[in-house]
């Protein structure tokens, strides 16, 4: 690995060691809203803490000796640290000390998040300059997420405050995830159905370009929340005056305005990437297609669309990750989704409730991003011979 990568990795490993030595890994509160006491790694993990520090030092040693095969060992060691932390954490919070008061809450401390930071630095430095860097890191994080997921499912961490929040609202939790996901997904699909034809139209009829792009860019420029407000007013007026719309369940709050705003936001990346993808195709190739006797329709479906697909998929990727983030706002206006959990947490000043909304949100965005990135990678490699 290059020297700059080494420095980042070593710094990351030091962050790991320092968090085990100095930072609090858990916060114990007598009830949900009161502030609590911080508990460090040594107190929480006992002798396990020394093992964790030893593993972190091992990482530094491996980085300094700088051998090709060490990257794999560093990755495995990092995952081991993470697994160990989760395991020891689960054991620690089972202890009676934390379970005397029935409403006592134990939540994740700052050290826990610091080791995420440290680990990210170790990994990014470790694979810096590597051709398949992105791929390796994706694999690493996928394993990491799976590990956390397995620990959560096994019930090992059930005493954790965030899990208690989860059990308190487990039925709404999954419903909100589903709602969040489908709201994001369907808004992007609607964005595609509208946006791709618009992109094609602009590509073909240059005259309309400036007008349509102005409107789409405008949609992107207005802050999400303001756009929501702008949409809500005419929508509620419409539904008050029109009985049919009202019967359809369309009104100024809830699903409809959120959906419309998300579609407007999805349009921007989809339209721009469609135009860019079509423009990128060599003109000679299109002339050849025409010269071989392909009709315009055939040229579009068989040549232009498949060749611009990687770029259009790139637009979809931006649209879906952005949409997953923006869907939070639906929670503000009764549109449901993880936003409703997050805003509830904010209102109640309950950080664990906020986390309960944010973590699946990050996982969802990460997952969709990975899936589409993989599709693009595979398509380019298989059909166009372009390796990233």
């Amino acid at each position, binding site marked *: 690995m290059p020297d700059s990568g080494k420095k980042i990795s070593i710094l990351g490993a030091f962050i790991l060691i320092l968090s085990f030595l100095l930072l609090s890994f858990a916060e114990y509160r007598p009830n949900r809203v009161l502030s609590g006491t911080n508990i460090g790694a040594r107190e929480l993990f006992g002798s396990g803490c020394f093992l964790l520090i030893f593993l972190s030092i091992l990482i530094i040693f491996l980085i300094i000796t700088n051998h090709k095969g060490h990257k794999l060992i560093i990755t495995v060691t990092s995952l081991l640290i993470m697994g160990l932390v989760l395991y020891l954490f689960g054991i620690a919070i089972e202890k009676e000390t934390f379970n005397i008061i029935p409403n006592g809450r134990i939540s994740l401390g700052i050290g826990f998040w610091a080791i995420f930071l440290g680990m990210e630095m170790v990994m990014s430095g470790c694979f810096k300059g590597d051709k398949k860097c992105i791929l390796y890191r994706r694999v690493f994080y996928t394993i990491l997420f799976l590990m956390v997921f397995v620990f959560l499912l096994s019930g090992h961490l059930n005493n954790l405050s965030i899990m208690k929040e989860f059990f308190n609202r487990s039925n709404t939790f999954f419903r909100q995830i589903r709602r969040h996901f489908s709201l994001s997904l369907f808004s992007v699909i609607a964005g595609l159905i509208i946006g791709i034809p618009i992109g094609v139209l602009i590509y073909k009829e240059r005259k309309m370009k400036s007008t349509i792009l102005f409107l789409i860019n405008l949609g992107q420029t207005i802050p999400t929340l303001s756009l929501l407000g702008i949409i809500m007013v005419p929508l509620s007026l419409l539904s008050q005056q029109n009985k049919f719309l009202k019967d359809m369940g369309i009104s100024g709050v809830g699903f409809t305005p959120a959906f419309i705003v998300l579609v407007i936001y999805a349009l921007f990346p989809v339209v721009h990437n469609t135009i860019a993808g079509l423009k990128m195709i*060599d003109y*000679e*190739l299109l*002339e*050849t*297609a*025409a*010269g*071989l*006797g*392909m*009709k315009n329709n*055939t040229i579009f479906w068989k*040549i232009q669309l*498949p*060749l611009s697909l990687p770029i259009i998929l790139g637009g979809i990727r931006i649209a879906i990750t952005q949409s997953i983030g923006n869907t939070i706002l639906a929670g503000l206006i009764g549109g449901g989704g993880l936003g409703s959990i997050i805003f509830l947490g904010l209102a109640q000043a309950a950080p664990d409730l906020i986390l309960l909304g944010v973590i699946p949100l990050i996982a969802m965005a990460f997952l969709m991003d990975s899936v589409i990135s993989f599709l693009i990678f595979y398509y380019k490699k298989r*059909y*166009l*011979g*372009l390796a990233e």
Partner: protein
Amino acid sequence: MIELKNVTKKYNDITALKNFSLQIPEGILQVLLGPSGCGKSTVIKLINHLIEPTSGEIYINNKNINEFNLINLRRGIGYVIQSIGLFPHYNVYENIVIVPRLLKWTKNDIDRRVDYLLDLVGLNRNYKKKYPFELSGGEGQRVGVARALAADPPILLMDEPFGSVDPLNRERLQKEFYRIQRELKKTVLFVTHDVEEAIRLADNIAVMKPGQLASLGSPWDFVTDDKEDYVKEFLGSEYTLKLLTRFMVQDILVQEKIKSKGYIHGFQVKKENTLSSALSLMISKGIDSLEVIDEQEKIVGSITFEDILKNVFRDTRK
């Protein structure tokens, strides 16, 4: 037969082609030779109607191309361009079968045709599943030729088809295309700026100067002195020497005259070698005669410098 009558093509203020007339008889390989930007490619694009002439008419088999159905016209014309023009997301098989598929051939006919074409252009049949990015420049160009020939069109339009291939492979492709054309006898319009390529392939050469036809004739016709200065300058003063590549040793090996050993210097040429290679061997060894051998390396005769002087260009040197 392809015929262009007084065709003019203007792009805004720029005249790409001015009063251009050309006749390409059936089964003839017509080379259109000229410097870059002289309007050669414009001629090709006019014929398959990718662009519309400003004035003038174009006929194919005595029928104005405006009377053809545009799509059918193009499907009946094989088209090869310089940058190969293979579709990167189609493998070799899918690239070749584009026109047969558009013409709704049966799967069996298409498969048989692809095998035939791959054999014809000298590519292994297991190339079918390869993608363009896996091919070398020469291989890609062969696929380009195979694709143009796919639906067996009577007409081929080739726009500097071997332009992006290295010299060694270009010569091989030229030789193979010459062989294919002898076999298939298509009506071909072949655009190039390479004089040697024109000499190797052409039945007829049309030399162009910007926007206009400068001179027309068979490759031998250009040996004579009566051409205008522009044409002579473009073809270069070694034109005659280059023309020797068109002849094979066996072409002037009239009778099997085996001279006495003392006369022969022991240097040999194959009878299917070009006269230019025979001549360069003579010059490099400082001799004026060579033994001629056949495929089995058996001596079948000899040629001398005198034979070349006497026999080549006999007809053009009046």
